[in-house]
């Protein structure tokens, strides 16, 4: 989502602070482990940009829990967006980095917010160009509803009913200097 900095937004509510966010991510990691047998064919794939640190944290939690590292990759979906011809300027393109072939892997796609589902649609298209995974799961920190495509998350940090004119702002230490999730309104 592209937000114009010109629109002033007010904080309506603080949804998660740092401690609660960490607990949510740990719980997401546990759910991923529970839903899979072993880590050998598992790969956590963060969607740029904020899916990357969340995915990295989940991978770290899983490693601490299971005592073995889990494969981690980064997916850039810019070139697969369905609104490329509508948005100007062109969004910045960064490399996709997958550590190994994804054929027959269980892929856990990770993003910060699940909203319309269009980002996930793009991510699925991008992923399929790299191979044929055995299964693709979706893990999101916040599910805020208002889907425009038939897409759902398998693992959810927090479900929040929202109005369409509200904005969910996820801040992470890695990208924003602090951990918190805010509901903003115009």
């Amino acid at each position, binding site marked *: 989502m592209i937000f114009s900095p010109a629109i002033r937004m007010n904080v309506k509510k603080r949804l998660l602070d740092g401690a609660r966010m960490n607990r949510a991510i740990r719980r997401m990691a546990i759910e991923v482990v529970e839903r899979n047998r072993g880590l050998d064919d598992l790969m956590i794939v963060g969607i740029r940009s904020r899916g990357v640190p969340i995915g990295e944290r989940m991978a770290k939690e899983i490693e601490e829990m299971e005592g073995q590292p889990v494969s981690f990759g980064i997916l*850039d979906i*810019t*070139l*697969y967006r369905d609104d*490329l*011809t*509508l*948005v*100007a*300027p*062109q969004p*910045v*393109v*960064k*490399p*996709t*980095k997958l550590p190994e072939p994804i054929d027959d892997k269980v892929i856990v796609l990770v993003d910060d917010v699940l909203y319309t589902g269009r980002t996930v649609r793009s991510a699925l*298209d*991008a992923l399929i*160009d*790299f*191979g044929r995974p055995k299964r693709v799961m979706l893990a999101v920190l916040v599910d805020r509803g208002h889907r425009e495509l038939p897409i759902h998350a398998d693992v959810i940090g927090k479900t929040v009913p929202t109005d369409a004119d509200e904005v969910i702002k996820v801040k992470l230490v890695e990208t924003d200097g602090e951990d918190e999730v805010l509901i903003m309104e115009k």
Partner: protein
Amino acid sequence: MRTAGSALRSKDLLGTEHLTPEEITLILDTAEGFKEVSERPVKKVPALRGQLVINLFMEASTRTRVSFEIAEKRLSADTLNFSASGSAVEKGETLIDTAENLVAMHPNMIVIRHKHPGSPQMLADRFENISIINAGDGAHEHPTQALLDAFTIRERLGRLHGVNVSIIGDIKYSRVVRSNIHLLTKMKARVTLASPPTLMPAEVEQMGVRVVHSLDEAIEGADVIMMLRIQLERQGKLSFPSLREYYNTFGLTRERVRRAKEGVLVMHPGPMNRGVEIASDVADDPNVSVILDQVTNGVAVRMAVLYLLGGAHGGAGE
């Protein structure tokens, strides 16, 4: 609204002369993202789906035409190649008429190579809704070549700022060198030129470069040695006594590379005249030559340019 650092200001890429350092960095950063696409099992992304790109090549080209075509195809654009031979140009059609007819078929972008300097500018001014990309206009500019050269230098050395680049050979007739001087000086690289006096344009120092008169002076302290092709087709007659003499004075030989700095990069925009400006054993030495890296990087850089000019302000759909 387009902001500096995230978009190009112009709908066209006509040269490096009018690019800002921020725009150059944006193109090079974007190209890094695209380089990875060419290494995937499926070397194609849907970014320019439904866009038509016409490659209007009115002058011979292998590398540049093929490179643009691959870049367009990897972005899922529809491409159409138009060359002077076998077309109505042979019946005397003017460039403007040819372009008007092509534009009537609603392309989004036109990549043009033409022997007359300024022809891309002419099309850019005439067609407000179409992005024009200059793929070489006479001895004027060849911006994507300079961009891919800069990308290759940055990839190998990690920076452009303060890098010593020596460009040697046919300075006078080279569009590659003009685009490179504009780009490299903007990025604060230090450019040195060397050529026989007959191939050195007057007052070239005003472009912010150093001029020396021998190959050895140019090589000393250089981080990058960029050899230029002697363009026999642009010179009516030779500007030096013989090709053999040119090789002996300005040809890059193994012995001369040995005297250069440790880790020096040897570049050439191609096509090479082996045994004229560069010795085969230098051109083919993977320890110094990055000539084929330049070709690989050319596709990524052209994808970046097409992507940044395409999309929302890509023409017909606007």
